[in-house]
């Protein structure tokens, strides 16, 4: 067990998988000579050469589609988007090709590809660089999505995503890359579809994913000062979704808040709320609340940005409303 940054844990996962399978390669903007825009692929060019660690032109549609095509031919591409904001240029390839090829071909042509990169806001990057992209991906059947919140989860989930036979989006957090945590040295994977109870409380369930796990834990600490103990359930994987874990925590606390970085309209939280009311209605003592980004494009000004982002204070307020 070593203490690694989230960034290096992702690097370790890619190296782990590239060591065991020659069909895995990494392609994206700045991934090779520059060591990655966020240094996630540091040292990989030297280790694997330019056959397997490939700088692409700034052509998201093109290189994402190339990677999808390579996957249909049996390779296992890791397609890095410098941020998922830029992947909107490539959504035709993700939604129309990667997600549907296996179905349209009646199971003949699978697409074992990973799309990875940061999602969500960082600091004052304004509207086009600060958006949570989960919904766009998870909306389409045929795509899977994981959102690691810790270094250990980052390594295990990315490794599992690379081995998975379907398109898997791995959405990272730009502000998480420097987060440190214990990461097992040995080869391991964290299966998709397994949520993780990051904190056990019992009074209220804060369900969340990705970077917001840290905000949820902060809110739980604040609530604990007033004697309220919260469960913090980190979904880790949005699709497949660990429904059992969601229902379990709700059954225990009878109250739930969904926290996410994205917008509310048709967001991940909307799905989770629908699920809870459909399948655990009798367990609920209060409506399920959502805490999301304000329903506006991300503003640049520091004070407005703070207002727009979901934060621990908002989570505490939401929890109080359901208690």
């Amino acid at each position, binding site marked *: 067990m070593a203490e690694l940054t989230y960034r290096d844990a992702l690097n370790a996962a890619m190296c782990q998988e590239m060591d065991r399978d020659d069909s895995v*390669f990494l392609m994206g903007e700045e991934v090779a000579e520059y060591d990655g825009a966020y240094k996630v692929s540091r040292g990989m060019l030297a280790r694997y050469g330019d*056959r397997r660690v490939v700088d*692409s*032109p700034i*052509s998201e*549609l*093109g*290189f*994402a*589609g*190339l*990677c*999808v*095509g*390579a*996957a*249909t*031919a*049996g*390779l296992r591409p890791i397609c890095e988007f410098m941020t998922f904001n830029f992947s909107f240029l490539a959504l*035709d*390839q993700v939604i*129309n*090709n990667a997600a549907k*090829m*296996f*179905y*349209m*071909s*009646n*199971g*003949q*042509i*699978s*697409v*074992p590809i990973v799309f990875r990169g940061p999602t969500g806001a960082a600091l004052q990057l304004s509207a086009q660089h600060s958006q949570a992209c989960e919904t766009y991906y998870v909306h389409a*059947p*045929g795509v*899977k999505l994981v959102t690691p919140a810790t270094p250990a989860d980052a390594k295990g989930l990315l490794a599992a995503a690379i081995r*998975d*036979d*379907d398109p898997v989006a791995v959405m990272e957090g730009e502000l998480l890359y420097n987060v440190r945590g214990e990461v097992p040295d040995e080869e391991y994977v964290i*299966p*998709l*579809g*397994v949520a993780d109870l990051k904190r056990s409380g019992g009074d209220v369930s804060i369900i969340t994913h990705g970077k917001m796990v840290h905000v949820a834990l902060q809110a739980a600490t604040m609530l604990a000062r007033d004697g309220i103990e919260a469960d913090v359930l980190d979904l880790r*994987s949005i*699709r*497949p*979704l*660990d*429904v059992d874990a969601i*229902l379990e925590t709700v059954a225990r606390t009878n109250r739930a808040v969904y926290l996410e970085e994205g917008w509310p309209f048709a967001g991940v939280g909307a*799905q989770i709320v629908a*699920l809870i009311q*459909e*399948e*655990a*209605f*009798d367990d609920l003592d209060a409506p399920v609340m959502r805490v999301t980004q304000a329903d506006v494009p991300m503003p640049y000004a520091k004070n407005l940005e703070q207002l727009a982002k979901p934060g621990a204070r908002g989570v505490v307020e939401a929890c109080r409303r359901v208690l």
Partner: protein
Amino acid sequence: MLQATRETESGVANGDRSSAGGDADDAPGDVAVIEGFTREELHALLAEMLVYRRFEEKAEESYAIGRIGGFCHLHIGQEGLAAGAIRPLREDDLVITAYRDHTQAIAKGITPRAAMAELYGRVDGCSGGRGGSMHLFDATVGFMGGHGIVGGQIPLGTGLGWAIRYRGDDQICVCFMGDAAVNQGAFLESLNMAAIWHLPVIYVVENNEYGMGTAFSRVSATEMEARSGAYGIPAHTVNGQDVLETYRFFADMAERVRGGAGPQFVNAETYRFRGHSMSDPVSGTYRSKEEVESHVQEQDPIKLLRDRLMAADLLTQAELEAMDGEVRAVCEDAAEFADASPLPDPSTLYDHVYAEINEHGRLFLDGRGPGGAARGGTPGGGPAGGPGAAAGGPGGSAHG
């Protein structure tokens, strides 16, 4: 010169294809008589194109009586390109194209039966009825699909070339597109990447002059031949209505690319004799009846080859009629086969959405799909069998 021919599932030979390339020593037909082709090879190419033509005519007929639904784009008039560009390829070479894909699929090795059954949306279709006219697939013969978004298949074809190069194999990929697709960003981005990585891909524009109802020249700032120059990719123009020219060109080009010549761009001039799709009249606001008629009379790839063979005393009317009779029988058989094939089993609705059904978690959130068993019941249900219709649970994983 021609690759080994295929038997149809019915055992009926597709025209003269079964004799092509065989009996080289004792048959007088082994002597090259026109442009390096033997009599047998010429007959085989004619029969091949006739299969495409009769297949499409049968599809047109079936569409009219409601056996085929949705969008259906016929290739009539462009058969010379399918035969000339695909028949010279190896079976393990890869072909990918857009939605006007029936004849390319057959040219690459999908049987008329499997293609027609797919148009009918039946279980014996080459995509199991899940794809339809625009999405024919058979990976075992290297046909990587019919794709429905203009230009969307071009990065995929580039990726197929990437995979070939990555593995150090000697296959090639032929990536077809319509003329309108070259104005998509996907085309430009793909050509750039193919050039910098020297990929074994031949990009072929089926230039039938119109993107749906818009003439290429009206929406394009430069000529087709100029489109690859910015990336240093050689451009070639071939007369797609002349199957012999097209065949010789691709036979040669395939080997050059296989040998490391890098990506190529081919402007294949052709013409669509039918409307854009079934709902579009043959002629209309965007092209005149006279224009279409003159192409049909003078530029029909099948008639051109037929006339040439007859003029050289290499084909009699009786032989032609016999060939056409066999071909019609093949296409009639394909339609009967399709009609007799069952609809897909409703219990398979959720199959093949994912290649890997993960052991944990729920992949389908509608309360109906595998693993969708709702605690306490979920409204809905339907063909998949209602709440909890796990239908074998993770049985959807058929990936091998």
